[in-house]
């Protein structure tokens, strides 16, 4: 594609989808992890990818965000092909993600952790910081304001100065989401956001996922094990099993789909 890497995807030529992964196949030494999978993410939806253990959910996710490169197939973000790009290049293009577990800086405060998410938007460097002229000051003010908006959005005002390492798991997870949002992503990919949470934390997280879609108009892709949450908040669901896509549709359809029931719901 003609566009230089590192520039944000501009106008969308395509109205049907924002992100598309077409005919993806991935295998490790002959073990087929993903077999000819095609998925797309539209401009405004909460999309869930579910499946039993070992179905290939995380493999698919890692293909989308660039940790794995599939042997066959193409991935597009907007009008740009990104199949061969590295994760940080995809991040610059507007792909935000949160991790399974929490991958934050435990020794930094919540604000500083969120500011690291703004890194790709900052133009000044350490030397600028050392001399700290007006330009640097203005940038700091602007970025801090952005971060404060996210703090307000995620209702973490009371912990903004706390060290992340001292927070509960649910709050750390919220900071993790905040850092992904700080990038101003076009699409947010969340890897098992509810894993290891208690009921209340799950409810909070589910509400924030819905808010991200409604208030910020960012589509969200969730890979999630917890069926109940997924059925409640997702607009559309893909179901994987043994590396194959076995169903796609609205939650009500998925619940009734015999293949899904057999592969997933019926397993217990």
């Amino acid at each position: 594609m003609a566009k230089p890497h590192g520039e944000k995807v501009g106008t969308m030529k395509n109205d049907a989808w924002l992100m598309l992964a077409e005919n993806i196949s991935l295998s490790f030494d002959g073990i087929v992890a993903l077999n000819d999978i095609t998925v797309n993410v539209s401009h405004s939806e909460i999309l869930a990818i579910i499946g039993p253990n070992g179905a290939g959910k995380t493999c698919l996710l890692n293909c989308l965000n660039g940790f794995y490169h599939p042997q066959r197939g193409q991935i597009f973000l907007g009008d740009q092909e990104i199949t061969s790009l590295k994760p940080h290049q995809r991040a610059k293009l507007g792909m935000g993600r949160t991790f399974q577990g929490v991958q934050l800086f435990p020794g930094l405060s919540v604000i500083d952790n969120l500011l690291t998410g703004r890194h790709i938007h900052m133009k000044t460097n350490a030397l600028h910081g050392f001399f700290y002229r007006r330009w640097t000051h203005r940038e700091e003010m602007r970025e801090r304001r952005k971060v404060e908006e996210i703090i307000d959005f995620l209702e973490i005002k009371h912990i903004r100065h706390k060290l992340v390492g001292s927070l509960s798991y649910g709050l750390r997870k919220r900071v993790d989401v905040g850092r992904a949002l700080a990038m101003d992503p076009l699409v947010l990919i969340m890897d098992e956001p509810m894993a290891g949470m208690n009921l209340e934390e799950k409810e909070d997280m589910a509400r924030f996922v819905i808010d991200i879609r409604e208030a910020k108009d960012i589509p969200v892709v969730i890979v999630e094990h917890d069926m109940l949450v997924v059925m409640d908040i997702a607009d559309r669901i893909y179901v994987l099993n043994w590396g194959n896509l076995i169903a796609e549709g609205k939650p009500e359809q998925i619940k009734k789909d015999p293949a899904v029931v057999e592969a997933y719901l019926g397993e217990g």
Partner: protein
Amino acid sequence: MRKLTDLSTAHKNWGELPQVLDQGVETLPQLLVYQAGRFGDRVLHRKKDFGIWQRYTWNDVLEQVKTFAMGLASLGVKRGETVAIVGENEPELFWSEYAAQSIGAKAVCFYPDLTAAQMEYMIVHSEAVVMVCEDQEQVDKVLELEEKIPAVHTIVYWDERGMWKYDHPKLMTFKQVQEMGKEYMVRHSRSFEEEVATGKGDDIAALCYTSGTTGLPKGCILSHTYLFDTVLRLAGAYPLKPFTQYLSYISPAWGTEQMFGIAMGLLLPLVVNFPEEPETVQENIREIGVEALVFSPPQWESLASLVQSKIMDAGPIRQWFYEWGIWVGGKVNLGRLEGKKVSLGWRFFYLLADKTVLLHLRDNLGLQDSYFNLSGGAGMSPDVFRFFHAMGVKLRSVYGTTEMNLLTMNQGEAYDLETVGTVLPVQPKFGPPLEFKLTDGGELLARGGLGFLGYYKNPEATAKQMMDGWYCTGDVVSMTDKNELVYLDRLVDMRGLSTGHFYPPQFIETRLRFSPFIKNAMTLGDKEKSFVGAFINIDANTLGTWAEKRGIAYSTFADLSQNQRIREVIKGEIEKVNRLLPEGSKVKRFLNLPKELDPDEDELTRSRKIRRNFLEEKYVTFISHMYQGVSEFKAEVPVKYQDGRTGVLNATVYINNLAKEGKEQQ
């Protein structure tokens, strides 16, 4: 009857304040317009938003109020109608109230944690036509009631979080109303200034619904003059500095905040600071260097417990230093309070204690600069007062009723902590000085000042409170020889036992609540019962930590509360209080409730007072077991979960004896 007032110091303290009210200023909006002309670009409101204290000058506030008021007018709100407001303390809440008053409407504020059902009666009774809500949470409650409150034609909200997908014909944002106001000002000749000028001092400024420990809430009328009267009573009793930094934290649903944040804020004036979130109050108090603070007794008590529980986590050396600092502080400060001279040696010790311990305590609580600390309402344990005074925080009681306005306050530099203070001075323009009278039963009657303005649409209840021109407070007090009032209890709450002894339930309960291990307590005992019993709601936080440190295993709240060693701890706490009581009034038996008392289950009022009659009915089997001499029984308690589900809690409850006589009662 005693004459109590001497106005000479009051006149000195008032300074030029009364003259402000002579400038054609009769209502709060008129005062806002007048003062904005004087103070223009100085700060009136501050609110922490996006991590920064955002400032609103007098001109800003006036502009916000003006556009919102005109917006309300264009929505058809008329003179004499009601605007109801519900939310946490935020500038928009204050602006909404001033705006409603600007066009001659009255405001009524609700506690933000009321349930929809609890709000319904007050919305209907106050005849509200517009509901101003803070956020989604409040809007949801109002929408839930929509069919039951047909008079409400518009629902306004100012926090747009989570409201993106709401589509309801009655819903509008605060800003949309202000935009309508701007258009309205262009189209209509009758200006904001004319609307404000039409207001009269005896217009109703706000309705304050009494918390309703008994029966339905009653809407107490606060007029503009009433609120000015209050401010001058306080300003006369204590030399308050203009532009004092004040933290608005208590809800305007409580009359006290109407008097402070709303009225005194404009008249004195204050710089009114709004905390970022209820969870950040402690931090915010520190940031703004608060100078005046009004809390309810439970809030002061929880602040004191906070210090104590944090100290319990500290190491032995720090604990020793803390104990020593508080001991020295107590000796010196409490001595000064009694008017004693402090010797040179003690002054030296105090300096040392202050620099090493007390200063840091005050600083950490944010009370370092605070010179006017009030506990609103009676019934706080003197231990809490002693604690704060020892720390160097001059805490004062102010006592009054919403109906009859503020009556007394601890004044001057030497006062008795066991009392709620001496009578407040009334500015002569508002009426005669306050007078007190005690009935044979010890009930306090009061008259003077502006007097009682009545309950809204409830003349019977109004008449019931009056007796030959005196307002009956329903509070039992006694008066010291220095004319200080000692608050004992509510008249209806003083209780007699079958033995002929009387006991003051609230007195016992507040002293129990001061224990870091006890969150709430209710005493039992009446004409059919021969001794005083108590229900204890343990503080699971501090006791949980206490238990963990000692390796005591527990699973649930119920399990913890009935633990043998926990019961021993509570027993010790009750024995401390028993020492203060005469023999016949001592607590003889108690039990720890197996669940927390909860306002959502109507067990507590919103201001966290216990609802005695309700509890006596709900826990009737507990009471009968206690007085039958049983030492343990199987209890079933219905519980309501937050999501509306109900269930039953099963637990074995132990009843504990305190004194030797406890074993052979009845």
